[in-house]
């Protein structure tokens, strides 16, 4: 099945009660599948058509507040259009789950700039490598979002076209196994009364207390989500037989490796093939897949920083005037170490530029050079 079918199937399995979406390429077929499921009764929930993405976000936000399990999905420009209510969804600590089918902001082809530009709205962001992972991550996302220790919305990012329209084998768990693992959602506010919009409180840090308190609580909630994401990933693995590293990051063939490349989303699949080829040639390089971008797994990278002499981050994004998002976070995580590894920056696959296995082999060789202490350029656009 295609990536979009995998997302829609997971939403059906999760027995979502209120869905709202506005069709936008390359997300369109999720909307199509979900309307079909709602029309033929496979989904018992309500599918709400809206005139735009801003409304879809407001609709699921209100439904989530009323106690419904919700789903919304979008791509590129639609993502930017729903930016404003995304803040209030996360500030109100509502467990909305959203699929972002990446579409860049400078072309219709994919890069991660659409979802990454929502970083400051404080949603949990998980990225997927293949269609199986899309299905599994949606199921995990509901469990993470609705966990009383978390209560935050989760955005799932996967590359448009590359995954959304590519068909490949996906194992679909039975409805019963999903029902057993994922109990129905029950609304219960976890915010103090003064802050809870549901009780007439001011929400967002008002109410006569420290006006910063809303930001502090929200920030801490994201950091506290890290162990919960790990735990739910483990639990999913026990029940369904598939897990994704520790839930935050995953290592691939890193044993005995001197250096690693770090990739996100579908690029990680191509990178795996490149690592296989490089290791077959005796090159000691492994792969780290970054699945959970927000909150960021600082502790994981401190461990990697001790093990490897060089880390090359492959960003399918650029924060204009700053650099790659992942690269900056990794370097930041390593700053307090006494002996820091080299960290190189690669930008790849922006605006849908095709990235081939050979490109990553070249990237791997460059990272190994840096590990040996050779002088190489810090930043490269692959």
């Amino acid at each position, binding site marked *: 099945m295609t990536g979009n079918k995998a997302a829609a199937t997971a939403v059906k399995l999760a027995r979502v009660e209120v869905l709202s979406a506005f069709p936008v390429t*390359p997300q369109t077929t999720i909307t199509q599948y979900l309307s079909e499921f709602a029309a033929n009764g496979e989904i018992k929930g309500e599918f709400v058509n809206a005139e735009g993405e801003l409304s879809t976000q407001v609709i699921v936000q209100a439904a989530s507040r009323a106690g419904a399990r919700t789903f919304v999905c979008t791509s590129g420009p639609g993502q930017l259009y729903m930016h404003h209510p995304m803040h209030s969804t996360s500030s109100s600590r509502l467990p909305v789950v959203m699929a972002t089918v990446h579409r860049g902001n400078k072309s219709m082809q994919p890069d991660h700039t659409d979802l990454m530009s929502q970083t400051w709205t404080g949603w949990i962001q998980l990225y997927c490598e293949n269609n199986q992972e899309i299905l599994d991550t949606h199921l995990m996302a509901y469990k993470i979002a609705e966990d009383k220790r978390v209560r935050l919305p989760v955005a799932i990012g996967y590359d448009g*076209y590359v995954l959304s*329209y590519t*068909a490949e*084998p996906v194992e679909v768990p039975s409805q019963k196994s999903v029902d057993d693992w994922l109990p129905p959602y029950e609304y219960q506010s976890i915010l103090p009364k003064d802050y809870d919009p549901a009780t007439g409180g001011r929400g967002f840090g008002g109410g006569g207390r420290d006006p910063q308190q809303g930001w502090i609580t929200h920030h801490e909630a994201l950091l506290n989500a890290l162990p919960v994401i790990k735990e739910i990933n483990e639990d999913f693995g026990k029940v369904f037989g598939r897990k994704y590293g520790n839930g935050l990051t995953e290592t691939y063939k890193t044993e005995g490796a001197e250096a690693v490349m770090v990739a996100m989303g579908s690029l990680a*699949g*191509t990178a795996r093939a490149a690592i296989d080829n490089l290791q077959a040639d005796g090159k000691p390089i492994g792969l780290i897949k970054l699945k959970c971008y927000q909150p960021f797994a600082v502790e994981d990278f401190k461990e990697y920083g001790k093990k490897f002499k060089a880390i090359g981050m492959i960003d399918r994004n650029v924060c204009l005037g700053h650099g790659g998002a992942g690269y900056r976070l990794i370097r930041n995580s390593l700053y307090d170490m006494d002996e820091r590894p080299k960290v190189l920056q690669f930008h790849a696959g922006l605006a849908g530029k095709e990235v081939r296995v050979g490109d990553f082999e070249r990237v791997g060789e460059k990272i190994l050079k840096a590990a040996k202490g050779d002088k190489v350029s810090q930043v490269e656009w692959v």
Partner: protein
Amino acid sequence: MVVGIRIHGRGGQGAVTASRLLATAAYYDGKFSQAIPMYGTERRGAPVTAYVRVDDVRVRERELVHTPEIVMVLDPLLSTRQTMADDMAEGGLLLLNAAYPPEEVKTGGNIRVATVNATNIALETLRRPITNTAILGAFAKAVGWPKLESIEKAIRKQFSGRIADMNVEAIKRSYDECSEVIPAPVKIAGESEAIAVGGYGVLKDVSSWRVFQPVIDMDKCTGCKNCWIYCPETAIKWTDENKPEIEWRKCKGCGICVNECPVGAIEFKRVEIKNE
């Protein structure tokens, strides 16, 4: 061993569906597969490309297929172009939708060729020139996999009822009518040339889209201008003799004029593809 397949067709012939059916059938055969469509500003008639990768292990790489072992062409006019064989692997197989035997194929290179008249099969089984299933049976015959039953199972998963039955008939006929696979008669590849695919304004040329074309009987024509009004491509000019004249560059062979003519003066005739 990984096998890369490239599928050429036109919007409306079902190249993307062909890629998915093939990937699904290969999966039923016990292989891992990946069907990759190439989306741009596709629309009915414009050339489109899709890719399939089949392997014994789960496919992880996400690049397109750059040196295909097999190329399958759904459109008879595209089948005459050398471009279709570009970047093929040595000894690869080129399966063409063509009304002529493989001995007459002009596409050259160190490749093997086979042909099947998929347009005929499609018109006779589906009543429309959607050639994807009408070539998949031939694929199974020429390549040796996937099993015909696997393709049928994939079709019945995608379609239901009468549509599924018609498509299953198409693959069976196509399996039976596929030619032998022979080494390409032309060894040296000719020059690859682009094909006019549309465009706007003066560049507009949709003539390659036609499967049928309108032929006007001027004696029957009353000069009512109905065809001129309804033509969606403004391909009909009006002459001083109060008669229509078709600008062939603009005519995509949609048949609306044939349908709208109140006196039945326009006939819809099959376009013959010359293999030059």
